[in-house]
């Protein structure tokens, strides 16, 4: 079956290192998502697995066999391109069956598989059309059909939904998830859209500057990011950060606006950055106890949720996300922000997470003016 193992895979284009010593084990039948900012090397990594890009160093194994130097045409993987890359001169049926035709399969077998795939993706009525006569969503289905028809053990998706509009994207996301549970093959999916990553993945791989930052289930990554990059990358709006300083005794961390955190554990004293997710913040009136003060800038009402922008005394802008109604303060009015200590994230000087949850007691928050 199709597990994928990468050992110390590096790729350089000239002096530029796109991938730096990537180690990765993908289990058979897993849905793995590569996510990261643009230029992080996620597409290159996918292409390395497909064999479209040769590695500079390291080995690639698929299904237990090393395939580092096996050409793409012999690896037997399926690849769905961002641009779909349908053959413009062939109709849908031929686009889908071209791989089978190349493999010299019998007409009967090709026809049987084509019918099955067309039925599965509901594109039976489109088989005679040319790609340019199809809508974006239909093209996407054909591209997936082309991948499905050779019944590979490994599917690779390179940002397949990024050319679709929001509605279709959601629909196709659902279809791909359904496909994975029906086919049961290993799937590796590249995206820069964290919603896609969170909803589709069994495990997410977060890449940055050609290295893996963290691998884990969506929940793990969201709740326990290993460093500031991961913490800031997942979640929308992103996590709020502010710098903190240790006081001269070292027993207290001082944040903006008289905010104090008891350093009840040795590792807390290494913290230089504090993070808090927008949904963990609560807006209260500015004279409430134990709150830090901020200036209400504006609110965005998305219907199902509201996002408020608050300027802190040190001029950083924090966002507050709330499913309920945020009171309509005037822009410029003073408000207070409050949160619970267990919702707090702390990062040390190297931006690594300090695991608060492992402490017997979370550090206590106190605001003194």
């Amino acid at each position: 079956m199709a597990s994928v193992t990468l050992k110390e895979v590096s790729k350089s284009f000239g002096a530029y290192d796109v991938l730096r010593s990537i180690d990765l084990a993908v289990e058979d039948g897993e849905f793995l998502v590569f996510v990261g900012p643009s230029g992080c090397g996620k597409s290159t990594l996918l292409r390395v697995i497909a064999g479209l890009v040769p590695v500079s160093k390291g080995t690639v194994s698929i299904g237990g066999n090393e395939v580092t130097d096996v050409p793409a045409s012999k690896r037997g993987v399926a690849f769905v391109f961002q641009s779909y890359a349908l053959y413009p001169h062939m109709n849908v049926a031929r686009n889908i069956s071209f791989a089978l035709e190349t493999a010299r399969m019998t007409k009967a077998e090709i026809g049987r598989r084509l019918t099955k795939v067309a039925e599965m993706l509901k594109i039976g009525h489109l088989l005679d059309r040319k790609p340019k006569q199809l809508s974006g969503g239909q093209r996407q289905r054909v591209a997936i059909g082309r991948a499905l028809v050779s019944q590979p053990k490994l599917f690779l998706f390179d940002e397949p939904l990024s050319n679709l509009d929001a509605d279709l994207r959601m629909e196709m996301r659902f279809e791909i998830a359904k496909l994975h549970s029906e086919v049961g093959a290993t799937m590796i999916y590249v995206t820069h859209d964290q919603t896609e990553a969170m909803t589709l993945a069994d495990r997410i791989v977060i890449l940055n500057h050609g290295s893996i930052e963290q691998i884990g289930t969506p929940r793990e990554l969201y709740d326990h990011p290993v460093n500031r990059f991961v913490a800031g990358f997942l979640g929308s709006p992103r996590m709020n950060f502010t710098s903190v300083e240790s006081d001269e005794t070292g027993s207290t961390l001082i944040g903006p606006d008289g905010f104090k955190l008891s350093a009840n554990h040795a590792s807390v004293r290494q913290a230089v950055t504090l993070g808090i997710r927008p949904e963990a913040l609560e807006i209260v009136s500015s004279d409430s106890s134990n709150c830090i003060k901020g200036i209400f800038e504006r609110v965005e009402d998305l219907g199902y949720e509201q996002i408020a922008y608050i300027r802190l005394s040190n001029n950083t802008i924090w966002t507050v996300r709330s499913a309920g109604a945020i009171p309509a303060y005037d822009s410029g009015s003073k408000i207070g922000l409050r949160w619970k200590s267990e919702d707090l994230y702390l990062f040390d000087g190297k931006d690594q997470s300090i695991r608060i949850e492992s402490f017997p007691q979370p550090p206590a928050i106190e605001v003194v003016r």
Partner: protein
Amino acid sequence: MARKSQHYSNSTYRKLRFLKRAGLYFGVLMVLAYMLFPYYWAIISSTKTPENLYSFSLLPSLNFGNYISLFHNPIFIGAILNSAFVAFSSSLISLVVSILAAYALGRMNFRLSRMVLICVLMISVFPQVVVLSGMFEVIGWLGLYNRPTALVFSYLLLVLPFTTWVLTSFIRDLPQELEEAALIDGCSRFRILTHVLLPLMGPAIASTGLLAFILSWNEFLFALTFILTDENRTVPVAMGLLTGSSRYEYPFGQVMAASVTVTLPLLILVLIFQRKIVSGLTAGAVKG
């Protein structure tokens, strides 16, 4: 602040637009007249009897005597067949070679590809006269002197650089992902070329093939130098050497009839491939 600009009434803008369009069509007419008049003049002159030839008239006189005597001239008929053979062979060979070369140069990023491309360009820079004597030697060594094959061989020198160059830039403009998709589908390089790239290169192949054909069909210098006897000549040279009944009489009407006749195949080819050519000529230059 108010912008300082002149505003006309709606009807004035409408008139202005009309004037601009009229001006454009007038310009087009002028260019067309400039380009088509010589051909029209050739048609008129070719249908005149020798006596009428020097009287001025813009209307054809529909006397086909020149054409009849031309088509009874075995040398001219032979020349047309030679030309057809030479032009077809050299454009076909150059297309096959340059498609293969273009795929290699345009897609496989090997270290020397840039060098090779520059060399190809350099070759097309040399004037024909410079290579003439060297080419003459080569053709002598190959034993091709006074054979139409010599022309096929030598025209490759003229045609190949430019077909290779145009097709290379066309292949470069085809999306890389198509080729990768074909690789994933298990295709060999050759199958990618024949089943994925070639069908998409129709416009480029039509236009470069046609230009190659025109170039070989019209070529004069090599055709004059490498061919000795009348029965092996191609049309441009045969026309140049057409003689009248005495050496002082230039068969002007027949030459005109011949030039009309040899232009016809080109016109027909252009009309057949017209649509493809338009998209092909721009495709190489700017991605659209």
